[in-house]
């Protein structure tokens, strides 16, 4: 009886994990090899044809490219921005640090849906502030539809995503900066190292672990991100900002082809599992930050 106690304690949590993780994953795999339509129902095993349909769909390749850019470039820029803010907060100017630290974190705290809404309104063609200011500077005309133009839609969504993700990087970088031993800087100062040299030879090497954790996490999260794209563009115009999670919904609940949607989501799962193992490797090597 005593031996069973820890397992009994785990049972409720495990039941939930099975219900939302194990069962759906297996069922998803089965779906991906079957012809499941929301209209006509399931009509049996079809082998790899769902996967073939996904690969033959040019929209898949476009979404894959979009998602990769969105995840990799977006995360990299958010990290640069986060590091900049962290360095600024680490100058230790006094009370203002705490207040500014709080204000800089706001984009991360508000819901992605609200963030998407706010950016969409900010970029509004006729009544948005951005166009008004750009017109003043003579850069763009009022009426420029940033989100309605296939060339700029994805960039705009990425901008909003960077805006929402950088505070997380900032918080993590700040913790990393504060754990760098002061003696290293003092010694370098004695040796006459310039500020730039100190940054490249002391600060950056010390932030290596945090940076790799952030990079992997950021790419995984952005790769999974459905919210920002859905709220701001729904993948449009003309699928120019389509990303994989939104495409899963498109295949399954707009085209009602659950089999094709499942095949795509199995592929996303395989890709992200690989990335997750990379993450585990990164954190187990770094141990502490």
């Amino acid at each position, binding site marked *: 009886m005593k*031996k069973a106690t*820890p*397992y009994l*304690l*785990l049972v*409720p*949590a495990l039941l939930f*994990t099975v*219900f*939302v*993780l194990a069962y*759906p*994953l297996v*069922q*998803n795999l089965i*779906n991906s090899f079957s012809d499941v339509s929301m209209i006509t129902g399931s009509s049996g095993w079809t082998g790899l044809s769902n996967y073939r349909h996904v690969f033959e769909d040019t929209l898949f390749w476009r979404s894959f490219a979009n998602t990769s850019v969105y995840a990799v470039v977006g995360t990299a820029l958010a990290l640069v921005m986060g590091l900049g*803010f962290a360095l*600024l907060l680490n*100058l230790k*100017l006094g009370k*203002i640090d705490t207040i*500014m630290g*709080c*204000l*800089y974190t706001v984009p991360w*705290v*508000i*819901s*992605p*849906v*609200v963030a998407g809404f*706010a950016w*969409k*309104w*900010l970029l509004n063609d006729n*009544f948005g*502030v951005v166009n*008004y200011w750009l017109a003043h500077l003579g850069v763009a005309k009022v009426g420029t539809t940033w989100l309605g133009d296939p060339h700029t839609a994805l960039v705009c969504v990425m901008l*909003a995503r960077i*805006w929402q993700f950088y505070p997380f990087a900032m*918080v*993590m970088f700040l*913790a990393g900066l504060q754990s760098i031993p002061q003696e290293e800087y003092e010694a370098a100062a004695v040796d006459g190292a310039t500020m730039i040299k100190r940054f490249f030879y002391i600060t950056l090497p010390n932030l290596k672990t945090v940076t790799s*954790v952030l990079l992997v996490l950021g790419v995984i999260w952005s790769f999974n991100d*459905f*919210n920002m794209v859905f*709220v701001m563009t729904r993948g449009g115009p003309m699928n120019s900002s389509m990303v*994989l*999670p939104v495409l899963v*919904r498109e295949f*399954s*609940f707009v085209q009602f082809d659950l089999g094709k949607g499942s095949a795509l*989501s199995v592929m996303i*799962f395989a890709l*992200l*599992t690989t990335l*997750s193992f990379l*993450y*585990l490797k990164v954190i187990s090597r770094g141990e502490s*930050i």
Partner: protein
Amino acid sequence: MKKTLLSFVMIVLALLVLLPVLWTLSTSLKPLNEVNKFPPEWFSPSMSLNPYSDMFFYLPFSTYTLNSLIVASSSTILTLLFGSLAAFAFSRFTFVGKRTFLLVFLLSQMLPGASVIIPLFQLLQKVGLYDTYGGLILVHTAVLLPFVIWLLYGFFQTIPRDIEDAALIDGCSRMTALRKIILPLALPGIGATALFSFLGSWNEFFFALILTSSDSTRTIPVGIGLFVGEYLDVWNQMAAAAILFSIPPLILFTLTRKTFIKGLVAGAGK
């Protein structure tokens, strides 16, 4: 001098970063005819709180708010209940498969929502929980549990075992020790976890969007997400809804900032 300049830069940056939020706030206070006006103005004499009451009248936001409150608080209670049992097992027992179970919970946090949504949708439809509070609460609980277990596990680990051992010697059972000693001592940590859990469910959009289909179960983010683009003419009411919806997260975050960030930094690095 240098300090003043840097402080000035920091304030300008804060304004830039907050621009989308401030613009939404300004919009939420304007009457409709001034929202659709060129050139756009930040302040106007006719600003009022009217859009905040109009949105409850013209859009179904009172139902959405009620739905969000029900779903988020039920999910919080369930995650805390089951999460603390699991975290207690991990922190106070040694058993075969402990590392594996911990790893399963760690990895399930990374699980892409897109790769489970279709079977979940089918399952909920089959058992009659599609488009119900119950279905959404179950899914939110399951999605939030892994992270909650990790957070609570961390907090439980910080409570010294000596006190508990003393209680066990005095004839307390393990469960009494959990109830009478660990839970009260872990209360600040549990509080922070509860807030995290509540916000996780409150802000969640993807599952809530796909697993509901009627206004009587939709949560606020779904309402906002679906209306953007549909009700273009009431930007001020939409902005008001967005601002109101953001207030709980902002308050909760300010309250628990320190604990939360500490747990986060430790959790992501572990």
